[in-house]
């Protein structure tokens, strides 16, 4: 029973942060568009109203075709990774878990790298070949891990799932390394994809993520109180009325969908899924009813801002977004951790 005030203030702050990040992300870049102008453009796009002549055509084009899809993709990926990280940390009762713990991302990454290496395209999909193959390979990985665990033990304990994930992920990692070693011309492309980026993806990519995002988020929200109970161990959760088997599978599926889809469209962007939930938990406490929605909002805002930094710091060259997430996230994380640990504990 967190106090309602705290909940409203936290949610309000989260919404404001995400919204502000989006607007700044859309406005700032090689061409600066004043914030009121970009607001008006977005507003008119949303409601399908024609642009007045006072707004330059170039600005409209920059926002609708370049910045908005990019910012929205960044927001979706950031939100997905943060939500998946929150879910994994809660389910595994381990603040060091992240969306890549289960190994689904390795599957997605391998699929993507294979596409980049062979350069094949599936007819009709065109440039979407990469994310679609990546999502499918991530999904196959998840199914394989779950089947493998199920085959080993009926109970499907979390520890066993994690171990199976590590086994599969190391195995796939070997192939990933093999391809990198064999590759010649595509090396730079593969490496930069692996480091993660949301640039030059367009609306197609954003649209591709949306269904996975919605389903994944819904699955997690359905288990938001179950996650709180599971933090106290599966046995305790059961005595509280939770069916651990059902909740565990639903949460894993939701988090894996979010992770797989994110990796498929933007590569393996590190740190967001680990640090954002942790930061939010330091501020709001571990109750998932507040933690999960706030992590989603903060993750979205955080990735939009880091992407902004990635493309503006040494423009026109773009930095890999993973470099920025780590370089900005780590010090903030360290500062908050220092504060939390130094706080005297009452007994």
């Amino acid at each position, binding site marked *: 029973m*967190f106090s309602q005030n705290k909940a409203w203030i936290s949610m309000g702050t989260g919404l404001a942060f995400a919204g502000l990040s989006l607007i700044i992300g859309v406005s700032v870049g090689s061409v600066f568009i004043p914030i009121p102008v970009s607001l008006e453009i977005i507003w008119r796009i949303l409601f399908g109203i024609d642009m007045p002549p006072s707004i330059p055509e170039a600005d409209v084009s920059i926002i609708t075709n370049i910045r908005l899809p990019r910012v929205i993709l960044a927001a979706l990926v950031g939100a997905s990774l943060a939500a998946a990280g929150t879910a994994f940390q809660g389910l595994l009762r381990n603040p060091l878990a992240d969306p890549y713990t289960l190994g689904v991302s390795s599957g997605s990454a391998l699929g993507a790298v294979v596409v980049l290496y062979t350069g094949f395209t599936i007819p009709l999909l065109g440039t979407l070949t990469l994310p679609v193959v990546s999502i499918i390979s991530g999904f196959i990985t998840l199914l394989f891990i779950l089947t493998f665990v199920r085959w080993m033990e009926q109970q499907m304990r979390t520890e066993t799932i994690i171990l199976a994930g590590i086994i599969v992920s190391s195995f796939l990692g070997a192939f990933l390394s093999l391809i990198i070693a064999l590759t010649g011309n595509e090396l730079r492309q593969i490496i930069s994809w692996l480091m993660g980026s949301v640039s030059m993806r367009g609306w197609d990519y954003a649209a591709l993520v949306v269904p996975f995002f919605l389903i994944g988020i819904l699955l997690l929200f359905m288990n938001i109180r179950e996650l709180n109970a599971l933090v*106290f161990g599966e046995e305790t959760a059961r005595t509280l009325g939770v069916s651990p088997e059902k909740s565990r599978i639903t949460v894993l599926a939701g988090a894996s969908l979010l992770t797989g889809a994110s990796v498929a469209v933007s590569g393996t962007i590190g740190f967001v899924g680990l640090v954002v939930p942790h930061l939010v938990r330091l501020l709001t406490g571990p109750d998932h009813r507040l933690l999960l929605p706030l992590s989603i909002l903060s993750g979205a805002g955080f990735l939009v801002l880091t992407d902004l930094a990635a493309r503006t710091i040494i423009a026109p060259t773009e930095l890999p977004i993973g470099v920025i997430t780590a370089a900005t996230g780590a010090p903030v994380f360290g500062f908050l951790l220092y504060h939390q640990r130094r706080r005297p504990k009452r007994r």
Partner: protein
Amino acid sequence: MLEVEQLSGGYSGVTVLCNIHFKAEPGEFVGIIGPNGSGKSTLLKMLYRELHPETGTINLNGTPLDSLTQKQIAAQLAVLPQQEEEAFSYTVCEVVELGRYPYQKGWFGRTSRQDREVVEEAMRQTYVDHAAHRTLDQLSGGEKQRVYLARAMAQEPDYLLLDEPTNHLDIAYQVHLLDTLKQWAAKKQMTVIAAIHDLNLAALYSDKLLLLNKGNQELLDEPSNVLKKQLLQRVYGTALSRVIHPFAPRPQLMLEPDHLTGNIINGPLETLQKEEINNELYVTSAMDWKTLSSAGEENGFIWARTFSLSMENWARKKAAFEGLDVSSSDMHVEEDMDGCIKVYTAVINKVGGADAGWTYRPDFVCILLFIDSELNEGEMAGVLAAAAEAKGQAAVDTVHNREIMFGEGPVTVAVSGQRSSIDTQEEIRRRSARLVYNRLR
């Protein structure tokens, strides 16, 4: 009502429990006892469906456990686990609110006003309401235990299962916790089923005890019938004695550590000697004697190494009040023929009363009876009674002018606790009485 019938089961194919059957009524406190590995936790796990039984049924209020969902079970049956895992710093309030989970409907299950009231009430009852917004890692072990109890109470259960609830708690918390549970059980008609290691606590709080032995149901009965010396010695494989609680009608069990109970001293009667300390006469010994005295110290029974032989000062005061004088006491030791019983007597004579026809009258007798044998409390009381009778008989037979004498003075019986040549208590009583009588006559 909780009914368990023909329950068997265990972990992954290994049968741990066999054929358990019992019933627990509303308001009843059932203690589950048994050695390590006897299946106490396994039984509890089956009751809260962490384990599925191989055979047998468990009924909650007449409904089989198998036909209920996890949520329906949780709304009737709460568990206070032995040890909680905690990964993040939840606040007390958030933890207790988890107890409302079984009552919250729908995917997102909003917290209703009623939920809130139940949570607050549970926190009040367990005295953690002052810490509602503190996080768990700021609490002591005892406080955490109470938070988890509050969470269980927020489930508003008809049945509360506890696995070693008093582990890691100091004695005050143990008593407080169990007192509270006992009260709730009565007030809310809640059935409490607790696995308890401490047999004495189990005896004090349980209405019924279920004794498990190697996965089998050894006995289910009220504590005084289950906590029998022979039975427990067989089941637990250790020596113990049963005593009564001084104030409560429940048995208690005493352990028998080797280093205190195993010592045999040859000829304990030999170690006795008279000693004068501050002008008072004492009999002292090198070993402790289990002692029952009519002087009424402690609960009657004490362990002692020094025994006062003279109450001369006391006798003088009393005599002075009656206008008489007191002669010096007359001290004797006597042993029976095979050296197993030794009696010390101190007789204090009143001097005077010439008009009543006597000059010396033995008036006050202090008797110390040492027996090198093994007697239980009842037998010691028997010996004490026999010695007192012998003293009375001696008084009657030495009557002066038909006045009763030896009216005052304590009788003390001390035993070495070692097995001796005379082993029937009848014999000990007879010999002790004769020894006392002979000595005084």
